[in-house]
């Protein structure tokens, strides 16, 4: 019996102590007609060795690729210490720290995390995580609407990650909140402050401001923040944490700073892992803290006056406030926060800035290599952080397929989400990409695009294909 320690003798003694004849009897309160619980088609048990063989085989078949996709999930170097320490049983197998005295490890770590994160965004308070960046943005929208009171409309630029916009829609629409799209400048690739003119005078709860935006382009965050605040809307920043080691933090945007900042913490030590688990972070001005969703750790003292840590402001949460809670979130992404905290502690401030600079420089280098290929060009003129949209002379899908056959994931095809952009590809090169990696991509692209454009001419002669 995997993981069940009971011996026959144990079972006998336990049944005797309970005073029943069989385990069966313990289920006698279940209406007889319901008993069964089929498990039809459920596979038989595998030993650890067998499941390991199965999983290793599948993993090996999947293989690994040279990756140039970013689009909200970034391949960064993760120091070995991060997960070797984070998966220590004491972190890995603990529950949410309800019993503070028995959870000072996790609680102090959360407090340290909050400190680091508050500094990254330069806002007063942060929570201890939400599910991911997209759902964190939805929570921020809900929070802004609660805080704002008069409006249930929120402005969302089209430069916000399209999947995030979908998630926000799923999570807020049942509460009658309206999301209003803001177009972007097709030349620069960012939102123009002028584009907001048409919304002037209308009451909005918030304006979402991505930095960098989905295209990798830097937004005029100061102007956008000031515009929001001037109109009485909250400014919600969505930011990349790596970028923040280099970029002006939301708390300093414009005259008074953004009100809420959210983002996905994945770049801070979470492996790509096929899409998760990552974590969402959220920070806000101190006066909004009681509207904040999620756990928050706080410092206090113990009976002897020693410093210690607890979960605090729990009256916001579902287990106390129930239907009037700030959110339904309970289990969050704790272990990812543990990893993120260790991750941030290892390189330190200069190291994280160096990572950010390397990502930026690598992406610039990639873009210049790719755009050296005939017919390939940048789609936008705006300054970028570590992603860029490039335009191909031919449809992206077959190019990506041809690259894939060479073991290269060449970027995200924007044909579905931004069909107006032409044959556009969102590419990314983090610090984990080497010079040779970039060269390899560029060489293959040149070859493939070359092949794809040449036959295109030849294809004029019908019947010539074999």
């Amino acid at each position, binding site marked *: 019996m995997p993981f069940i*320690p009971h011996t026959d003798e144990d079972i006998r003694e336990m049944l005797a102590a*309970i005073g029943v004849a069989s*385990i069966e009897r313990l289920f006698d309160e279940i209406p007889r007609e*319901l008993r*069964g619980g089929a498990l039809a088609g459920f*596979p038989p*048990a595998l030993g650890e060795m067998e499941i390991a063989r199965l999983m290793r085989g*599948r993993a090996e078949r999947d293989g690994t690729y040279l990756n140039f996709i970013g689009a909200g*999930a970034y391949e960064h170097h993760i120091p070995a210490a991060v997960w070797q320490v984070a998966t220590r*049983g004491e972190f*890995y197998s*603990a*529950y*949410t720290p309800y*019993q503070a*005295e028995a959870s*000072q490890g*996790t609680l*102090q770590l959360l407090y*340290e995390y909050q400190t680091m994160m508050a500094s990254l965004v330069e806002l007063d308070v942060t929570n201890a*995580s939400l599910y*991911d960046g*997209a759902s964190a943005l939805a929570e921020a929208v809900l929070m802004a609407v609660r805080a704002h009171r008069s409006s249930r409309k929120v402005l969302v630029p089209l430069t916000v990650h399209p999947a995030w916009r979908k998630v926000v829609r799923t*999570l807020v629409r*049942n509460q009658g909140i309206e999301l209003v799209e803001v177009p972007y400048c097709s030349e620069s690739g960012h939102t123009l402050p002028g584009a907001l003119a048409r919304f002037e005078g209308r009451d909005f709860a918030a304006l979402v401001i991505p930095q960098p935006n989905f295209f990798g382009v830097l937004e005029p*965050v100061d102007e956008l923040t000031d515009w929001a605040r001037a109109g009485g809307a909250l400014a919600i920043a969505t930011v990349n944490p790596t970028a923040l080691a280099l*970029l*002006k933090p939301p708390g*300093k945007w414009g005259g008074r700073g953004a009100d809420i900042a959210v983002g996905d913490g994945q770049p801070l030590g979470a*492996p790509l892992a*096929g*899409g*998760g*688990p990552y974590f969402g972070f959220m920070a806000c001005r101190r006066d909004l803290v009681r509207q904040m969703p999620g756990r928050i*750790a706080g410092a206090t*003292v*113990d009976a*002897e006056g020693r410093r210690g840590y607890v979960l*605090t402001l729990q009256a916001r949460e579902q*287990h*106390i406030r*129930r239907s009037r809670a700030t959110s*339904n979130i309970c*289990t*969050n*992404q*704790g272990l990812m926060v*543990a990893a993120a905290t260790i991750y941030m502690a290892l*390189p*330190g*401030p*200069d190291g994280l800035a*160096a990572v950010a*600079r390397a990502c*930026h*420089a690598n992406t610039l280098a990639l873009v210049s290599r790719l755009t050296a290929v005939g017919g390939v060009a940048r789609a936008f003129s705006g*300054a*970028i*952080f570590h992603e860029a949209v490039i335009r191909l002379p031919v449809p992206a899908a077959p190019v990506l397929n041809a690259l894939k056959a060479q073991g290269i994931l060449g970027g*995200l095809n924007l044909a579905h989400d931004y069909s107006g952009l032409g044959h556009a590809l969102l590419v990314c090169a983090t610090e984990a990409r080497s010079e040779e990696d970039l060269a390899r991509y560029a060489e293959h692209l040149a070859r493939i695009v070359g092949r794809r454009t040449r036959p295109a001419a030849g294809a004029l002669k019908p019947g010539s294909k074999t």
Partner: protein
Amino acid sequence: MLIFELSRPGRRNAAQAPAAGVEASGIPARCLRTQPLLLPEVSELDAVRHYTALSQKNYSIDTHFYPLGSCTMKYNPRVCNELAMLPQFRARHPGAPDDTGQGFLACLFELQEMLKSVTGMTQVSLAPMAGAQGEFAGVAMIRAYHDSRGDAPRGEILVPDAAHGTNPASAVMCGYTVREIATDADGNVEVAALKAAVGPRTAGLMLTNPSTLGVFERHILEIRDIVHGAGGLLYYDGANLNAILGRVTPADMGFDVIHINLHKTFSTPHGGGGPGAGPVGVNARLAPFLPLPVVGRAKDEYRLLGERDLPLSIGRLGAHLGNAGVLLRAYVYMRMLGARGMQRVADFATLNANYLMAELAKAGFEVAFPRRRASHEFIVTLKHLKEKTGVTAMDVAKRLLDKGFHAPTTYFPLLVPECLLIEPTETESKQTLDAFAAAMKEILEEARRDPQRVKSAPHATPVRRLDEVKAARELDLAWRPVNRER
């Protein structure tokens, strides 16, 4: 000591930073950060030593018996971690095409199938990232269902008063108002109250069965008929699925939609707060509304289904496909248990709970529902102990920490005064339960003999009892360098 207090300006961890000298040449000055970044400047040794030391301050399954009711703190097999972290899975980008991840998707697809088998539901989506998000998705599907039929006036979700706080909170996030239903003396839903509450405004009822009171809802079939009869749907909060695996399915009980906490029943680690995963299962009526993505299979090829495949979907809950690494861990766990192992989970979780309940009753504790079988958990109430000695459930919980046990859940469900909700799980041995019962007995004796000792617990933990009121009043949520001067 905080990591920041170990920090010294200018300390560098050269092994972890890319070569210096690269400039952020392409970024306009007005976009650049000018504020210093308050990250610690420590050596790798200091960081490893600091977080290793912090870890040792935690109680965890790997170090302590952890009978936290409603949380199913069972052993988290180490192999699940190893296999979910296989290099190829670890490195997989969520934007990588499906054909580069057929092994990965096969695991997720089979996980869906196993969850269907275990719950009896027709379709499953793995998208929700925790139980509460599963609840949101489930209730949103109920709403989408009613909406799709033009049955718009149904604006109410019913929830028993014993329900977990996420239930009402999730319903509200879906735009519903919540109506609470009372519980009878034996821990069942008060059928009369339910009957009085249902009606044309009823969108559905959210139920945990066995309930958070640690008993199986005996009137489940009547309840099903009442709710369905009124045109409402039945939502199953799967947090307690561990109690009934292989014994009875939510589908057979008549539930239309469920969520499952993989981080409880299927043993993925709780990680000091998460991540979890809260897959949802539905019957055929609700299948069109499942959250995205769902893993589909056609001709032995696996594919993530999207908006085009499920146009009526309630949508996406996260940017990618949910907590994939958690899903892989649950997959490994379930494959290791197999069909027979699945059933044994409920059997031995229930055996352990009933045994511990019997032992605690013998030791003089007052069981909240003495006429009932325990499910995989049960409640002890210290109401009378408190009246006599002043010792509260919280005091007993803290004193348990001194004895090397994590405390049970305290003060939940709220309707049982001074309650301890105790869930031993099936992976604990009789000896461990006996040791816990002995410790509880000692505390009971101590409460009578020397209540102050119990009330001032814990004594043996890294810190003594913490002042939560101060924490909430004088908010200190982040360290500030000025604190150094204090």
